[in-house]
C-alpha cells in the first residue's frame, strides 16, 4: 500500500512539473516566436500632437519718422508691446496669434529714404538699408505732411516687408502718446491682416484637421481652388492643335517660361520645388462640340459645359512618369479652322475677355483663336507664331490662383505697390509660407495620429524599424515646426513642417504595413489546435484530478479532526 502511495505521489509531481514546464517555458516561447514585430513608437508624443495648440508669432517693428512724435513723447514710447489673440477652433485645436511690436524712431538713413519723392522709391531705398527677415514686418509711421502718399490713401504697402502709414491731420492736434497709440492700433491690425497671416487663411489651412463648420461654407470654393501643399509641383504647358492640317503652330515656350514663369517660381523656391515642361498634342479635341452663335458670328462654349471639356484631353495629357508630385496643367487650345473663332461664354452669356478658364486643383485652359491671322483663302497649312506675352499673362494669373497666392482686396485707404516683374511681393510670399506651414503641420499631425490609431487598433500589422524611424522623425520635425512657429522663425518652420509631412506620408504609405494586415484569428486557431488540444487535455485533466484529490484529502482530515 505504501509503495502505491509513493507511485501516485510521483505521478502527481510529474504532472505538475510538466504543467509547469508548459506554462513557464512553452507558452512564452510560443508567444515570443509567433508574435508580430512591432517597433517602439513615440505614442505619448503622438497623443500630445493630437491636441494642437499652435502659436504664430510675428515680429512687427513700428518706426516713427521725424514729425510724428515729439522728443518728450519719444522717451515715453514703450520699447516693446506684445499682443495676443486667441482663437479656439475646436476641442482639440486652438490658435494663438502673437504680435510682438517694437517701437523706435527712424534713423537718419531711414529719414533720408523717407524723403524720396515717391513711395515706390522710398520702399526700395528702405529695403536696401536693412532687410527684414522672413515673416516680420516694418511699419513706418510718417507725418501727415509727407507727400509720399496720394491725398486719400493712408497706407502704402510696398513690394517687400514694409508699409508706410500716414497719420491723418485730425489726430495731430493735442494728442498724447496714448492717443497716438490707440489711433495706430486698428490700422496696425488691418496692415497685419493684409501683410501677415489672417485668421481666415489660417483656418482654411487647418481644413485637413478641422471639419469646417457650416458657417464657413462660402469660403470653401476659395480654399479649394489652390493645390494642396506638396513638396513639389510639376507644371505642364500643353499646346493643343486639333487641326495640324490647317495650322502649323510655333510657340516659343522656352523663352516665355524663362521670361514670365521662372521669376515667380524662383521667388517661390522656398515653398516647393517646381519643374516645368511643355508638349504639343495634335488631333486633341475638347469634349464639347462648340455651338455656332449666329448673332456673334462665332462659335461658343457655355460655362455650363466647361466641366465636360477636359475629359478627352486628360487621356492624352499623360501623367508625369518620373515623379508623383501634383501636376498643374495649362492648356492652350487653338480651335480647328472649321470651328474658329471660339469663345467661352460666362453665366451672363457674355464673352469672357481672356477666353480662358481654370479648374480648381487641376489647371487652366485658354482658347486662342488664330483665324484672324490669315486670309480664308490662304494656302493650308499656315505657319502661325503664338503671342506668348498674351498667353503667359493669363497662365501666370491662373498659376498664382492655383498656388494659393491669395489676392484679397485691400481695405479702403490702402495703396498697394504693383507686384513688379517677379509677380509676387515679399509679404505675399510670407503669407503663403504662414498658411503652408500651418497646413503642413495640420496634415502631418492628422496623418501621424491616424497612423498611430490604426496601428493601435490592428494588432497584426508589422511595424518595422524603418517605419518607427519615419514616425519618430516626423514627430520631432513636427515639434520643431510648432516651436519655430512659436518663435516666429517662419523659414525654419516651413522647412521642418515639410520634413514632417514627407516623413509622415512615407510612414503612412509604407507597403510593409500591408504584409500581415489580414491574418484572421480563426486561421490561427485552425493551425494551432492540432498541437494544443492533445497536449493540453491530459495536462488539464491530471491537474483537475490532483486538485480534486487534494480537496478530498483535506475533507478527510477535517472529518478525522472532528
Amino acid at each position, binding site marked *: 500500500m505504501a509503495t*502505491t502511495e509513493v*507511485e501516485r505521489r510521483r*505521478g502527481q509531481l510529474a*504532472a505538475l512539473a510538466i504543467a509547469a514546464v508548459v506554462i513557464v517555458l512553452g507558452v512564452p516561447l510560443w508567444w515570443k516566436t509567433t508574435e508580430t514585430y512591432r517597433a517602439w513608437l513615440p505614442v505619448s508624443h503622438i497623443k500630445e500632437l493630437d491636441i494642437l495648440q499652435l502659436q504664430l508669432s510675428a515680429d512687427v517693428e513700428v518706426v516713427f519718422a521725424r514729425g510724428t512724435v515729439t522728443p518728450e513723447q519719444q522717451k515715453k514710447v514703450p520699447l516693446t508691446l506684445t499682443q495676443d489673440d486667441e482663437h479656439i477652433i475646436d476641442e482639440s485645436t486652438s490658435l494663438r496669434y502673437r504680435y510682438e511690436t517694437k517701437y523706435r524712431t527712424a534713423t537718419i538713413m531711414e529719414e533720408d529714404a523717407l524723403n524720396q519723392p515717391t513711395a515706390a522709391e522710398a520702399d526700395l531705398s528702405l529695403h536696401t538699408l536693412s532687410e527684414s527677415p522672413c515673416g516680420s514686418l516694418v511699419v513706418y509711421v510718417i507725418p501727415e505732411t509727407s507727400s509720399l502718399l496720394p491725398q486719400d490713401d493712408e497706407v502704402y504697402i510696398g513690394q517687400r516687408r514694409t508699409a508706410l502709414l500716414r497719420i491723418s491731420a485730425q489726430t495731430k492736434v493735442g494728442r498724447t502718446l496714448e492717443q497716438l497709440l490707440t489711433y495706430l492700433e486698428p490700422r496696425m491690425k488691418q496692415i497685419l491682416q493684409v501683410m501677415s497671416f489672417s485668421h481666415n487663411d489660417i483656418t482654411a489651412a487647418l481644413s485637413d484637421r478641422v471639419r469646417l463648420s457650416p458657417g464657413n*461654407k*462660402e469660403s*470653401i*470654393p476659395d480654399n479649394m481652388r489652390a493645390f494642396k501643399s506638396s513638396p513639389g509641383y510639376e507644371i505642364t504647358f500643353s499646346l493643343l492643335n486639333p487641326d*495640324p*492640317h490647317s495650322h502649323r503652330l510655333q510657340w516659343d*515656350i522656352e523663352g516665355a517660361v524663362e521670361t*514670365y514663369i521662372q521669376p515667380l517660381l524662383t521667388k517661390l523656391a522656398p515653398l516647393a520645388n517646381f519643374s516645368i*515642361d*511643355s*508638349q*504639343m498634342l*495634335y*488631333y486633341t479635341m475638347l469634349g464639347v462640340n462648340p455651338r455656332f452663335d449666329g448673332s456673334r458670328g462665332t462659335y461658343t462654349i457655355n*460655362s455650363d459645359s*466647361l*466641366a*465636360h471639356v477636359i*475629359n478627352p484631353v*486628360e*487621356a*492624352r495629357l*499623360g*501623367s508625369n512618369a*518620373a*515623379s508623383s508630385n501634383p501636376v498643374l496643367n495649362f492648356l492652350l487650345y487653338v480651335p480647328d479652322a472649321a470651328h474658329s473663332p471660339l469663345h467661352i461664354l460666362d*453665366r451672363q452669356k457674355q464673352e*469672357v475677355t*481672356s477666353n*480662358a*478658364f*481654370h*479648374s*480648381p486643383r*487641376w489647371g487652366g485652359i485658354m482658347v486662342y483663336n488664330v483665324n484672324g491671322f*490669315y486670309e480664308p483663302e*490662304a494656302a493650308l497649312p499656315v505657319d*502661325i*507664331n503664338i*503671342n506668348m506675352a*498674351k498667353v503667359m*499673362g493669363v497662365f*501666370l*494669373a491662373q498659376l*498664382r490662383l492655383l498656388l494659393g497666392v491669395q*489676392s484679397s*482686396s485691400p481695405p479702403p485707404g490702402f495703396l*498697394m505697390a*504693383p507686384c513688379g516683374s517677379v509677380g509676387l511681393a515679399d509679404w505675399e510670399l510670407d503669407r503663403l509660407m504662414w498658411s503652408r506651414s500651418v497646413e503642413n503641420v495640420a496634415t502631418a499631425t492628422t496623418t501621424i495620429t491616424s497612423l498611430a490609431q490604426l496601428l493601435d487598433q490592428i494588432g497584426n500589422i508589422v511595424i518595422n524599424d524603418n517605419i518607427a524611424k519615419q514616425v519618430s522623425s516626423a514627430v520631432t520635425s513636427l515639434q520643431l515646426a510648432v516651436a519655430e512657429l512659436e518663435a516666429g522663425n517662419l523659414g525654419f518652420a516651413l522647412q521642418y513642417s515639410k520634413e514632417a509631412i514627407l516623413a509622415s506620408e512615407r510612414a503612412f504609405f509604407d507597403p510593409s504595413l500591408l504584409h500581415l494586415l489580414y491574418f484572421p484569428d480563426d486561421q490561427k486557431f485552425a*493551425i494551432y489546435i*492540432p498541437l494544443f488540444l*492533445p*497536449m493540453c487535455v*491530459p*495536462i488539464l485533466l*491530471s491537474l483537475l484530478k490532483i486538485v480534486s484529490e487534494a480537496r478530498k484529502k483535506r475533507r478527510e482530515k477535517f472529518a478525522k479532526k472532528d
Partner: protein
Amino acid sequence: MTRQCGSESIENMAAHRCSSSAALVVLCYISFSVFIVANSQETKPTVENHATVVEDTQTDTETAEKSTEQPAVSVREWEATETEEETPDSSAPETGVSSSGPHPKDDFQEELVIRPLHSGDIYASFQFRTLWETDFLSGNKVSHYRLFPKSLGQVISKFSVRELHISFTQGYWRTMQWGQPFLPSPPGAELWVWFQDSVTDVDGTWKELTNVLSGIFCASLNFIDSTNTVQPSASFKPLGIGNVTDHRFLRYATLPREIVCTENLTPWKKLLPCGSKAGLAVLLKSEKLFHSSFHSQAVHIRPVCQDLQCKTTSWELRQTLNVVFDLHTSGQGKREWSLFKMFSRTLTEACPLASSSKIYIDITDNPEGEQFEVTPATPLLSQAVVLGDRRTFSVYDLTQQITFGTVRSLNLLIRWKSSEGDMLRPLLHAERYVAGYGLQTGEIHTLMYNNHPYRSFPVLLLESVPWYLRLYIHTLTVTSKGKDNKPSYIHYQPSKDRERPHLLEMLVQLPPNSATEVTVQFERALLKWTEYTPDPNHGFYVGSSVISSLVPSIVAMDTNSSQDRPLFSSFFPCKEESSYFMRVYTEPLLVNLPTPDFSMPYNVICLTCTVVAVGYGSLYNLLTRSFQIEEPSPGLAKRIANIIRKLRGVPPL
C-alpha cells in the same frame, strides 16, 4: 494562355485603366460637378492682377444645401479667368503668319512595308521614326517636347538612359516559313537598356525604370527583378552612337510569359504624334491586328548621328509594329489581300506632321507580275539592300495627292496568280527544346543551322536560364557535324538561388551547311511554396536564346548610314559591305517543375502535430500514471473446476 482580345470596348477599357486613376477621379468629379457647376463664380480684374471673388449668393445657398452631406468632397468648379493683359515686351514675337517658320528641330517619318510571304501569309511592318535634335546626354534638362512623346522623354532624362529597346510580341516568328523579319523579337516582352556611365546605382535605376515603363505600356514589366535580369557581355552592343561597351551599364530581361493585347497597343499608339487619327496609324485597329499569326510591337530609343561627320547628335525614337496575317483563317480560301481586308480601313491621307509617309510593297519575287498582281499600280520603284539581299519595292508616297487617285482613298489590293515559287532558305536559323524525362533532370538542346553553302561564320549565343533550372555546366557540349566544336569564347555566370539567373554566352563558329547543337543538362529545383505561379502545372517559361551574328551577305551592303534609306533597312548599323548583322531568337521553353500539392502545408502541420501529440501522450502517461501489480486472474480451467466444485459443495481451489 488564351485571352479574349480584340473588341473595341476592351480597348477602351484598357485605355481607361492605363490613363492612371487620375482620369477616373476626373470622371467622378465631372459627373459631380454637372449639377454643382451652378455655383461657379467669376474672377474680376482689379488694379493689378489681383482678382476679387464676387459670390453668387443666390445660387450658392441652394447648392450649399446639396453638398452639406459631404463637405470633404472637393468640388471641381470652373471659373472664368479674367486677367489684365500684361504689357507685352517689345521683343515679344507678334502673332501672325510668318513666311518661313524656324527650322523644326524634330522630324517624323512613317512607313509601311508589305511583303507577301511564300506561305501565302502576308507580312506588314510599320515603322514610325521621330528624330529630335537635342541633347539628353549632356545633363541639360530637356523639358519642351514637340513631336517626341513627353512621357518617354521624361523617362530618358530622369533615368539617364542611353539606349532603350522594348518589344512586346504575341506569337513566334517562323523563320523557316517566313524568312527573316526586319526587326526580330522574342515571344513575350523583351527589354534591354544601356544606361549612361554617370549612373551610379544601375540596379536601383533599372528597377525604377521597369516600374515606370510598366505603367507607360500597361505591361507586367514590374515583374522584372534581379532573378530574370542579366548583363550580357557581348551579345547586346549599343546600336546608336557612343562606344560605351562596359556591360555594367547594360541590363537585359525578358518576360516570355507576357501576353500582348490591346491594352499594350493603345499606349503605344498614344506615343505617335498623330495618334491613330491620321496617317498610317489609322490602320492600327486592334480587332484586326490581334487576329493574326504574329504580332510584335516595339519601341527603340537611341542617340544617332545627325550627319556624316557626326558633329551633332539627335535622339531617334523608332516605333515598329510587325504583323503577319494568316491566309487560312481569314482569307476564305481566296488568295487575295487588300488593305481593307487586312485592317478594315483604307488610307486617305498622310500624317500632316510627317516629313515622309510611304508604303513599300516587296515585289522582288514578282518581277514580271506572274506571281501576284498589285492594284493600283505605281510607277515608283525602289531598290534597297535589306538583310543581305537586294529587294525591289513598289513605292506609294502618301504625301503626294496623286497616290489617292480620284476616289481619295488608297486601298492596295494584292491578288495571287500562282502559288508556286520557293523561298530562299534563311542563312541562319535556330531552334531549341527540352529533352529528358521525369521531374528531376533534363537537357536543353539548342540547334543552330548555317545554311550557307560554303562560308562559315561565327555566332554569339546567349542563354539566360532561371535559377530553378540548375545547369550542370560541365555537361556543356557543342557539336557540329558530329564533331566537337570548341567555342572560342565562353562567358558563364552561375546563378544564385532566388537572386540571379544563369547567363551563358559563347562564340561558336558555324561550319558551312551544318547544324550545330549545344546541349547542357540541368536539374530542376524545388521551389518554396509561395514561389509557385498561380497555375504551376502549366509549367515555367525559360526565355528565348538569342543568337547574334554577322552573316555573310550575298550582295554588297550599304554602309553609308546618313543616306536617305527606307527605315526598315536602316535599323542595325552596318560597318562592312560583306556582311550584315542579324539576330535570331529561338522558341521559349516551357519546363515542368516538381509541383507539390498545395494543401500540403496544412496537412504537414496536422500530421506533425498528431505525431507529436501521440508521442507526447504516451510519454505523459508513462510519467504520470502509477503502476500496480494486479493479482493474475485464475485460468479458464481453474474457473470451470471451481464451478464444478461449488456444485458438488466442495470448497474451491
